[in-house]
């Protein structure tokens, strides 16, 4: 009897024990429940604060970048490229042509795939003109490329080398030209090309002096040909969103725009005549038509330094103003249509790169727009690469606009005073960021996400696919040739930019403040 009782007690205890074990084993379930609840809480709170910022700023409908226009269908356009250096290779790639060696080098790792997705513009490069045999040959090989993006088929047309650009312009078999020579040829070639009835895509900067700028302006204005100045960065989809943000006055009254150049390398300072092993790059009077290269610039004996490092000399360009400020100005002008400033002051010097250069390596230019009540500043150095960005400074917020966009409310903002007080908006971190990778507006995201989005990109994302911005700029030009319409960098924008650059240049060279006389249309 006792033993029986003992046994039943033991079984009872065992049952209790095992029930307890089952309960213990299920400890993870309530933990998971709590986890799920917390995750929901967190996401709904995030959504709430995000949507309240987006709602407060009235930005709800610009979440996704507007679609980029597709290529207009039409007859094959025969393009000639004048000057086939590095930049021309990128332009050819944007048109849909890569050098066979470049195709081979992009094959491993699937790097070619994005390029192959690029839309077919239905153009053929049928003419190459370069004073250097090596570059001309490279151009011909590129133009003859059999592998084309967007499922295009080779046109079958022969690629012709022209010894001078005039020969190319005289040839009726060329419909349009891309000018990618050093800058001292730009205005003259563009003017002659327009007068010869060709459409023109001209790399920046457009002109080295006022006379040639007026010439090219008049030529384009008196013709029905399509002109596009080569500035690709505003084709980045975040610029479309920035435009919308500007329209909706998110920043408040903008009185200062800061643009910068931050470089710190020999390559960045335009010392490019040596190869990787420190030996001079190829080129001699045997292979380079030096007379033609000099064009209308002062006579100088052949020099490999001048040939590759022409940017260093005022004979061929305006240094950082023409090469880099041009992009900055274009970005600002596309967004705000500021036009030509009333006055410009530049100062700077050659403080670091003590070679034979004319161009300053440190330069600050300040442009006044009293009618618009704002100042545009350009601060450039070739001896420090600390990233300083491009910032539009309004009374209520600042917008930093690069490959991505971020807006930070100002602590003393009047418009956002309530939101700042209630904590919906934090003045210490961006309230809005737009990452070109996702294209979504992202309010209150984490530090690392913001960090990634600030990384530089040379492409923009459309529906998650990286697209070369140069391709988009060329496409706009080609579309206008087929369908009419205005390019975003038409001759009016190019003229405004050209004058602004020349004002800063004149101020630097003459060490004085210069002004624009809108009646006489000249710099005084």
């Amino acid at each position, binding site marked *: 009897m006792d033993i029986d009782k003992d046994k039943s007690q033991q079984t009872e205890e065992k049952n209790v024990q*095992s029930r307890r*074990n*089952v309960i*213990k*084993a*299920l*400890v*993870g*379930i309530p*933990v*998971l429940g709590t*986890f799920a609840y917390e*995750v929901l809480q967190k*996401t709904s709170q995030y959504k709430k604060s995000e949507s309240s910022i987006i709602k407060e700023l009235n930005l709800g409908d610009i979440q996704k970048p507007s679609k980029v226009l597709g290529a207009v269908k039409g007859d094959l356009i025969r393009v000639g490229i004048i000057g086939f250096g590095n930049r021309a290779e990128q332009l050819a790639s944007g048109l849909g042509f890569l050098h066979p060696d470049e195709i081979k080098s992009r094959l*491993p*790792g*699937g*790097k070619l*795939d994005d390029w192959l997705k690029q839309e077919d513009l239905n153009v053929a490069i049928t003419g190459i003109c370069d004073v250097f045999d090596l570059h001309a040959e490279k151009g011909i090989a590129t133009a003859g490329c059999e592998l084309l993006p967007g499922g295009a088929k080779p046109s079958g047309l022969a690629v012709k080398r022209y010894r001078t650009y005039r020969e190319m312009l005289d040839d009726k078999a060329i419909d349009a030209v891309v000018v990618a020579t050093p800058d001292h040829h730009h205005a003259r070639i563009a003017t002659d090309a327009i007068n010869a009835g060709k459409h023109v895509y001209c790399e920046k900067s457009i002109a080295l002096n006022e006379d040639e700028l007026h010439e090219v302006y008049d030529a384009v204005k008196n013709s029905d040909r399509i002109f596009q100045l080569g500035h690709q960065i505003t084709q980045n989809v975040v610029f479309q969103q920035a435009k919308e943000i500007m329209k909706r006055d998110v920043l408040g009254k903008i009185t200062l725009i800061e643009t910068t150049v931050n470089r710190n390398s020999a390559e960045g300072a335009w010392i490019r005549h040596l190869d990787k092993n420190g030996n001079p790059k190829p080129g001699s009077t045997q292979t380079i038509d030096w007379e033609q290269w000099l064009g209308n610039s002062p006579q100088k004996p052949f020099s490999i330094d001048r040939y590759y490092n022409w940017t260093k000399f005022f004979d061929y360009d305006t240094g950082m103003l023409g090469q880099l400020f041009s992009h900055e100005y274009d970005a600002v002008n596309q967004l705000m249509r500021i036009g030509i400033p009333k006055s410009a002051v530049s100062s700077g010097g050659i403080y670091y790169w003590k070679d034979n250069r004319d161009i300053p390596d440190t330069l600050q230019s300040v442009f006044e727009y009293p009618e618009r009540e704002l100042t545009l500043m350009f601060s450039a150095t070739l001896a420090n690469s600390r990233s300083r960005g491009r910032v539009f400074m309004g009374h209520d917020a600042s917008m930093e606009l690069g490959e991505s966009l971020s807006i930070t409310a100002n602590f003393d903002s009047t418009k956002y005073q309530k939101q700042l007080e209630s904590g919906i908006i934090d003045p210490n971190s961006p309230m809005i960021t737009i990452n070109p*990778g*996702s294209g*979504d507006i992202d309010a209150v995201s984490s*530090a*690392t*996400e913001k*960090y*990634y989005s600030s*990384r530089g990109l040379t492409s923009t994302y459309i529906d*998650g696919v990286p697209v070369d911005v140069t391709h988009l700029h060329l496409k706009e030009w080609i579309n206008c040739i087929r369908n009419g319409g205005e390019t975003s960098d038409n001759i009016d924008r190019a003229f405004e930019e050209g004058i602004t650059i020349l004002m800063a240049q004149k101020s630097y060279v003459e060490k004085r403040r210069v002004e624009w006389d809108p009646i006489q249309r000249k710099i005084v």
Partner: protein
Amino acid sequence: MQKTKPFTNLQAITLVVLRLLIGWHLLYEGISKLLIQNWSSAGFLRESQWIMSGVAKWIISNDTVLQVVDFMNIWGLIAIGLGLILGLFTRAAAISGAILVLLYYFNNAPIIGIEYSIPAEGSNLIVSKTLIEAVALCVLAVFPAGKVWALDTLVSQFKNRKK
């Protein structure tokens, strides 16, 4: 015959808490990546500088590989997190968790002379919280963490009964 308990109660509770906390952390790491639209490990891998930098570069350079890595990373974290919280396949979860977290460590190790552009949480010298988490996962793998307060116990009971 009375089975000897593997731990004292305090030891058991401590081990269970450790398991639950790490599980929670890894599960949320996975879920949060799932919630971010177009999340990609590319940004993290781009920072890789030490012994894993070659592999990291290869992963970024290949779109398909990157997608596979992203997918495995997100769902691996979620599976490991769930396993640890529930105490299901505890040992497997702890071992794979330790390997995964060690991979993070090697891609972002605070080694003298290597600077990362992403700010680290706290000050680290060789040892970082990531490394400690990896070792804590080793502890869970080595000790019978699946034998206390874990679904694994029910699974093994069920198996034993079947036998």
